């Protein structure tokens, strides 16, 4: 017995000694960037090494010998791939295929926010989730048919908590919560059915609720009585859904602070209609920022306010949030909100090698809100390179590839 244990220890020692040698065979080494990994409280110039689709080392002075590809990131910012908690890549009429917008913004994970319901989820999986290079997750719509407009989205008969929870149980890794949106009927059936599905599945609910004067619903009751800690209110800087900032006092509503205290999360959900400078500047003046930064990505949000993740982070920085904090709310915070941490949202060794590289550009930039009003700022976060599951998928500066004159009769350069 004793000698076997002894042998085991020796094996362990051999493995430990051997490990650094094996780790040098990196697929990719990103050198010399300012690494911001809020989950690990890292904000320093370091190297990030990748092998087999995972982060294998984050340290200073990693030797590049044996790395198949080396990217010089000096002067750039290296972060975990961003997680966009609110995107539309299926179902909704404005939804768009994610790769050409998300990956170009440094976003490696999008959560489709209610495009599919339990009836349409399989088609969503086949046509988008399984096809996209972007990691696509889902908040499943409490409406069985998903986000397909009226009258379907207000059809209480199609809000089946059990069937929704059953579909969630079939895809526990892909479906991370429940979405309810656009319900224009009276009372609480949509929100109640969503919370019930949340209880059955053990997952959070994300709510986009139009508060009309004739619905019999009030934001205070929703945030304080209906939502559970960990549930999310999206479209935080909108002024028509929940009135974060009172139109009468210009101040953040007391019940909003109370809801935050009890663990309700506030998600940005910028979109084409849910970010107004008058709201955002007033809330920020009181230190009320969204817990998670997200885009509500869809056709008109890209064309008008250009609100991809990098743009939203730039906006938050213009409101006084510092860069590491903005990265935290775009990586580890959303990962935790959907119970995907530490698999996602960090550069910890062993995590998925989803990485974003940015430059901080100086110049004059117009940041547009949903009303096409601009705010001029002097710096922005500009995405230049994105790594998804260990592969470079976006490279605007050609940092990961050789010049063609050096490459001979290449078919694909290494």
């Amino acid at each position, binding site marked *: 017995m004793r000698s076997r244990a002894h042998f085991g220890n020796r094996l362990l020692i051999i493995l430990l000694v051997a490990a650094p040698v094996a780790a040098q065979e990196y697929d990719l080494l990103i050198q010399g960037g300012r690494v911001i990994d809020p989950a690990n409280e890292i904000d320093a110039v370091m190297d990030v090494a990748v092998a087999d689709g995972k982060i294998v080392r984050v340290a200073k002075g990693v030797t590049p010998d044996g790395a198949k590809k080396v990217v010089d990131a000096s002067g750039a910012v290296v972060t975990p791939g961003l997680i966009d908690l609110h995107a539309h890549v299926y179902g909704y009429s404005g939804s*768009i*295929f994610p*790769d*050409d*917008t998300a*990956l170009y913004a440094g976003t490696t994970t999008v959560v489709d926010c209610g495009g599919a319901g339990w009836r349409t989820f399989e088609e969503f999986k086949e046509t988008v989730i399984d*096809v996209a*290079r972007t990691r696509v997750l889902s908040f499943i719509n409490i409406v069985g048919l998903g986000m397909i407009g009226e009258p379907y989205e207000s059809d209480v008969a199609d809000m089946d908590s059990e069937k929704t929870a059953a579909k969630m149980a079939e895809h526990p890794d892909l479906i991370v919560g429940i979405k309810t949106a656009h319900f224009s009927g009276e009372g609480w059936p949509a929100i109640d059915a969503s919370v019930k599905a949340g209880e059955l599945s053990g997952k959070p609910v994300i709510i986009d609720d139009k508060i009309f004067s004739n619905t019999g619903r009030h934001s205070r009751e929703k945030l304080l009585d209906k939502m559970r800690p960990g549930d999310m209110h999206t479209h935080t800087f909108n*002024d*028509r859904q929940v*009135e974060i900032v009172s*139109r009468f006092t*210009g101040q953040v509503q007391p019940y909003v602070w109370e809801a935050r205290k009890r663990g309700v999360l506030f998600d940005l959900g910028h979109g084409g209609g849910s970010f*107004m*400078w*008058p*709201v955002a500047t007033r809330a920020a003046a009181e230190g009320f920022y969204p817990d998670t930064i997200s885009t509500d990505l869809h*056709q008109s949000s*890209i*064309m008008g306010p*250009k609100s991809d993740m990098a743009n939203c982070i730039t906006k938050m920085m213009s409101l006084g949030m510092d860069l590491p904090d903005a990265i935290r709310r775009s990586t580890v915070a959303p990962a935790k909100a959907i119970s995907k941490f530490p698999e996602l949202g960090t550069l910890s060794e062993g995590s998925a090698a989803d990485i974003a590289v940015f430059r901080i550009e100086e110049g004059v*930039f*117009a*940041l*547009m*809100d949903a*009303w*096409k*009003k*601009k*705010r*001029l700022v002097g710096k922005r976060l500009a995405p230049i390179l994105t790594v998804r599951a260990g592969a*470079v*998928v*976006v*490279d*605007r*500066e*050609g*940092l990961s*590839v*050789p*010049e*063609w004159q050096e*490459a001979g*009769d*290449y*078919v*694909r*350069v290494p």
Partner: protein
Amino acid sequence: MSGFLKVFRGLGLLALALTAVAEQPVIYDLLLKGGQVVDLKNDRNGRFDIAIVGDRIHRVAKNLPAARAKKVVDVSDYLVTPGLIDLHAHYDVTGAGLSLNPDHNSLRNGVTTAVDAGTSGWKGFEKFKTNTIDRAQTRVLALLNIVGAGMYGSGEGGPENDVNQMDVDAAVTMVAKYPETIVGIKTAHYQPSDWEAVDRAVKAAELSNTVLMVDFHPKPGRSYEDLILKHMKPGNIHTHFYGRLTPQLDENKRVQDYMWKARQRGILFDVGHGSGSFWFRIAVPAIKQGFLPDTISTDIHKSSIMLPHATLTNVMSKFLNIGMTLEQVIERTTVNTAKSIRRRDLGHLDEGGIADIAVLELERGRFAFLDSGRAKHIGDRRLTAVLTVRAGSIVWDLKGLAAEEFSNVGPYSNFK
């Protein structure tokens, strides 16, 4: 006063009145002020203002009065061109799997007209039209695939290899049904080594009196030389001609004689950058020898949009950095492209014409451009679309040139 004089005076007053109506100042909906206008169809390359009324270009002239315009946008730092035309795109987003959404991939890059190059055939075209073409802000035109099913695969047993799918009459009927939208025929990806796909597509284009675009994989017994000298007709377009599989250069990187001969007989050569059809090691020597593309296009789709970043402004920038002039690049994305699809209503800034306009920035700096082999070329100029006007409306405004600063506009949204 005699009757005659009365009539005469009456006529005179009427003439005066008519003159007054004609001279009443027109209010411009939009005035693009002071840009460097490059409109090669009209031999313009200089500083002009452009006045827009409704969806039309009203006037192009120097010093148009700003006071007449509801909105004035100062574009004096930029180039102003006709809305760009991308001759080769894939936007049938609810059809075959390779397609992307048209609007943000076009309008953000100055493209106001995109030609879908055969993603759908006659069987799927109407679905494409309903789901995408009719809903897009971009003008999406189409080359109809000679394969009825469209681009659903050319692997073993794929419909793109199936001659029975190539129903000339059905294609011609569909073209005739949508003459405003379908500008021609496409054949692509055909793997068997006979000429059936090309010949049927040529026939469909002839019968429908439209243009043909060919994507061609040479095979033993089916040579590229025969394609462009014998099978294709003048005015037909070969796309992907800088591709790795197209024998456009000899072993000494000299442009083959048959390329020049084909050009002489009227065959058009389109870039169709894509994921596998633009190589610096091929394009640079060809351009050095003077073999320029007739049209510059992207072949934008799910894969080409990634590392090679085949957006039209980026593809134009590549050519700008390997020996072509700005005018040559703009010509091949506006007036030449419009001519190649026989759409003379597009590709220019004629007064009275549709107000599709691109405002482009020519940035100077150090930029990297990747080709289909993922090798890079370092260049010093890059074109970016700053503002795009489609049918008179500003649909893309990168720098907020037409937007007001929020703190200047007083209360808005629900704030009082």
